[in-house]
């Protein structure tokens, strides 16, 4: 039995970190594992950095939030600044390589830092709308908390009604998962 994996996702509102965390949590639950997902929320509807806390394990999950993540993913400049505090010597820190002039702000104490071109791939190769699904693929690969097949099943469950109308969307989303996984695999 592995220990509980703690994942922190942060980005701008609209980048989809909450939906990614929720879909992965649901996929883990479907696999019969223990999962807990909690969003940060406040009075603002827009404008803040959106943070999602996700934990997956085989034992019931303890406190809903944590001080140090095993994997911390920051998708914007502000998100990098906001999430540095969650990084420790065992943390894998992942950020989007399109964030400019961020080198000095990157956490110095991380176990490993990965820059992945998720935004670029979304814009140039696939579609900006599947950016969050690419990120989901990256999280799935980096954490190995759920299998690729179950991640796809979870997307099917969430967006299946849209795929029925337009099967090409399914293809696009599956491709996005796969590309996200590849980006992490290559960077590792």
């Amino acid at each position, binding site marked *: 039995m592995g220990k509980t994996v703690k994942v922190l996702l942060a980005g701008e509102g609209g980048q989809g970190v909450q939906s990614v965390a929720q879909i992965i949590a*649901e996929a883990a*639950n479907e696999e019969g594992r223990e999962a807990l997902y909690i969003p940060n*929320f406040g009075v603002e509807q827009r404008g803040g950095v959106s943070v999602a806390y996700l934990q997956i394990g085989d034992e*019931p*999950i*303890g*406190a809903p*939030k944590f001080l140090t993540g095993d994997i911390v993913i920051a998708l914007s400049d502000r998100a990098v600044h906001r999430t540095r505090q969650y990084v420790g010597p065992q943390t894998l820190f992942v950020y989007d390589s399109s964030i400019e002039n961020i080198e000095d702000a990157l956490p110095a104490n991380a176990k490993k830092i990965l820059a992945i071109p998720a935004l670029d791939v979304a814009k140039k190769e696939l579609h900006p709308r599947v950016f969050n699904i690419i990120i989901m693929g990256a999280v799935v690969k980096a954490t190995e908390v759920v299998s690729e097949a179950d991640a796809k099943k979870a997307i099917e469950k969430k967006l299946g009604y849209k795929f029925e109308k337009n099967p090409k969307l399914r293809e696009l989303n599956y491709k996005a998962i796969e590309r996200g996984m590849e980006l992490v695999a290559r960077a590792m």
Partner: protein
Amino acid sequence: MADKPIEGEKRVFMTGNEVVAWAALAAKAEIMYGYPITPQNEIMHYWTRMAPKFGREFLQTEDELSAGFTTAGGVLAGRKAFTATAGPGNTLMQEPMSMAEAMRLPVVVVVQQRGGPSTATVIYSQQEVTMTTMGGNGEGLRVVYSTATHQELFDYTIKAFNTAWKYRFPTFVLGDGYQAKMRESLTIYDPEARGVTLLPAEAYLGKPGTPGVDRPPAQYRNTYNVEEELYEVLQGYFKDYEKMAPEIAEFDAFDTEDADLVVISHGVVSRAAKGAVKELRAAGYKVGYFRPITLRPLPVKELRALGGRTKQFLVAESANGQLARLLKEAAYGCPVEMLPMYKPGVGITTEEVVARVKEIAG
């Protein structure tokens, strides 16, 4: 119309607010009265979405004063009624809950605590403990369950209706913004299929027979002309409450027998405390875990026994000593030293509890 909201048992993955709505349906609650406030809004949302399918009802009122009084009215009319609120809404709710104490009305209130004082944050706290246990102008004649997991949120919401209708004191399920918004797995079930008897509601007024001849007259009052009359009525209430207290007080504990220090917490913070105590035990620290599930009444007997044999209590809570105040009263005269770990309006993690215990141990 669908018959039962839940057939048999089902493992689900949802937010705590959704859990409460399902539990109220499963407990055969007939009507919810409410006024929106974060972070409990989705209890209303899910209830209003699901309730009509099962012949249940909802009334949105103009504020929480009204939501509390209409809930009391629903109960007087013999309906299983409940409401849900948070923060400043809970403050307004204290006036009708005080009347519910005076008239012994089994209203059920779910509270999802947020930061205070005043509007503060819509996020999370454990700062509604004093208000929920002792609020209103009165004597705290109420029951408060503090839940820690979604499973408990389901179990104790169902239990709250039974406790309320059995003992006729207002009953609260005390959650918080984290429990409201987080998602985790639990098993929802039909309580009757598990052998849980759901007590039926009954109308307070219009019972058959001649008052004073066939049955005692129904006098439900919150006003008295004479001091002595109020005093006499309250003595009866206190007697009922004292008799009930040991029957319903609940707690959870482990590793306390040989512990030098026991971490005491309630609600969602006890998840961090539990993880910390397990970790510290594995590292050789003589620590224990104690968690009151009922904050009102507290498990006084067990707390006093623990306070008599343990050197130190570490009280961890997301408030500035609201749980500690209750514990101090319960353990008055016990030799135990009470150490604070207060983080008002902020969550407490496992790592922080571990660090604090190590710091105390030196």
